[in-house]
């Protein structure tokens, strides 16, 4: 009943292939970083650092100050998280701890649908419906503002935020809840004084992953923020047009000559984005790994 030798060869080949595929993801990450460096690093030789981290981004005049773009991204992203965090955590708590079964069955697929809506569709909706609303409410000259972008971004990061926060709440042992209730606390008190604090680090992870998602978002942001590369330093910046790093790449890459300084500079922004999201995700991943080892999450 021995196997014919040829069959084992097929199996050997398949298993070798599976191993290669298993390691391929590492290769892809390296490849991505490598090509960003290849196209982006020349910027640091072509453009003086003072210019590169200056306050004005006017590529036509050889001004490549990335500061307004970085701050623009920061403003939109942080505002988005400020909006999304309370909404997301409250929704996660509602779904996990309070909602009756039918509400949960209704909410979960809705949130999944939100995660599935393409960025460009949300951007389009933001342009045609939200922006006019913002303009009327503010009486501003345009509704394409940092705030409009933040609002859309908040909703785009909600699915990630809610599902990770839900997992965190889920991982809190039932005995904590029982102990809270047994001491005479109401369910409400137990949730806020026991369950949510116990899930705190998981919620932090959720915020980080949401942040990572938000900072890299491109199309929706580009379509609704008005794309003015100005330093958002005044108090009313939130309600003025702004331009993010992602939008800059997307809007300008189509028009630059390959190999030009401008072209390299756009890749340099890509490097900055790559590193930022890498660090954010690394931090989030480390908390998840630690949890796993302690048997907290799952």
């Amino acid at each position, binding site marked *: 009943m021995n196997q014919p030798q040829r069959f084992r060869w097929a199996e050997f080949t398949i298993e070798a292939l599976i191993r290669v595929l*298993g390691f391929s993801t590492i290769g892809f990450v390296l490849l991505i970083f490598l090509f960003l460096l290849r196209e982006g690093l020349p910027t640091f030789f072509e453009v003086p650092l003072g210019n590169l981290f200056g306050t004005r981004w006017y590529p036509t005049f050889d001004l490549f100050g990335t500061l307004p773009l970085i701050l623009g991204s920061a403003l939109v992203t942080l505002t988005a998280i400020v909006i999304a965090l309370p909404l997301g955590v409250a929704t996660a708590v509602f779904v996990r701890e309070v909602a009756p079964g039918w509400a949960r069955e209704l909410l979960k697929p809705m949130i999944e649908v939100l995660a599935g809506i393409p960025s460009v*569709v949300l951007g389009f909706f933001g342009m045609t419906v939200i922006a006019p609303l913002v303009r009327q409410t503010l009486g501003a000259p345009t509704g394409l503002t940092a705030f409009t972008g933040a609002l859309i971004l908040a909703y785009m990061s909600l699915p990630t935020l809610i599902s990770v926060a839900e997992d965190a709440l889920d991982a809190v042992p039932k005995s904590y809840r029982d102990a809270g209730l047994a001491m005479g606390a109401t369910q409400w008190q137990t949730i806020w004084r026991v369950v949510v604090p116990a899930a705190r680090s998981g919620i932090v992870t959720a915020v980080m992953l949401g942040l990572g998602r938000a900072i890299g978002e491109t199309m929706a942001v580009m379509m609704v923020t008005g794309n003015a590369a100005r330093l958002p330093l005044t108090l009313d910046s939130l309600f003025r047009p702004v331009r993010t790093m992602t939008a800059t790449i997307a809007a300008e890459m189509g028009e630059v000559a390959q190999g030009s300084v401008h072209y390299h500079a756009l890749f340099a922004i890509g490097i900055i984005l790559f590193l930022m999201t890498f660090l954010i995700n690394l931090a989030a991943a480390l908390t998840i790994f630690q949890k796993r080892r302690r048997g907290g999450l799952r």
Partner: protein
Amino acid sequence: MNRYLVQRAGFALLALAALVVVVPILLVIGTIVVRGMRAINWEFLTAMPRDGMKAGGILPAIVGTLLLSVGTALVAIPVGVGGAIYLSEYARDTWLTRAIRLAIINLAGIPSVVYGLFGLGLFVLFLHFGTSIVAGSLTLAIMTLPIIISTAEEALRSVPVEFRTVSASLGGTRWQGIRNIVLPQALPGIITGVILGLLRAAGETAPILFTVAAFYLPRLPRSPLDQTMALPYHLYVISTQVPGMPAQVQYGTALVLLALVLSMNVVATVIRSTFRRRRQW
């Protein structure tokens, strides 16, 4: 104040938050469906665009998106499922395995526009594929990998470990156990993951901006090295780059894209839930 009253108010506030999350979703979908329906007719779906895209149909964009999805699937399915099989069935808990997991998390977090840059640098320029369906599909495939790998790995891991032991005890090699027992059992879960990944790819704009998308190309692509229009990019173009575009055409395009993506979403959900109900363990 009565603390049960506080609880009531608190719960009401939570429910309100959930409403604030959900109502805009319904609003987005409702608006696009209602306004987009008016544009949808046979010509819109099957004709070439005319008059600077202001009239006619969006066939090349629809076909382009479908072709890109097929191209993405051709690359992402074998690589993603293979990677998932490695992680679930072969990998031991070493630093190398942890590096792979870290790479997957990192891939999932890379901004879509950075994928676009990467695709431009590697596939379009370095490998000389040009702006083409091949370059776009490869870029989208790598972006899709983390979704496919993590869902497929989860599906594989949910197959009870005992099946593998039994298969081994009956003289099956590890691969025979995977092929005969584990893969068939995990298949519905894997398919769900693949659909979720492709759905993401089909809706993305930024990665195809510089790798494949044609601004205006009123014909069907002739070869994998041809450019093509695509739904998401088309929607971007007609809503920001072309002045005087009739709103109806914009909403119609948005609706077609939304319908495509959401129907894939529904299919994935249906497969997942029937699978959960039917499985024998």
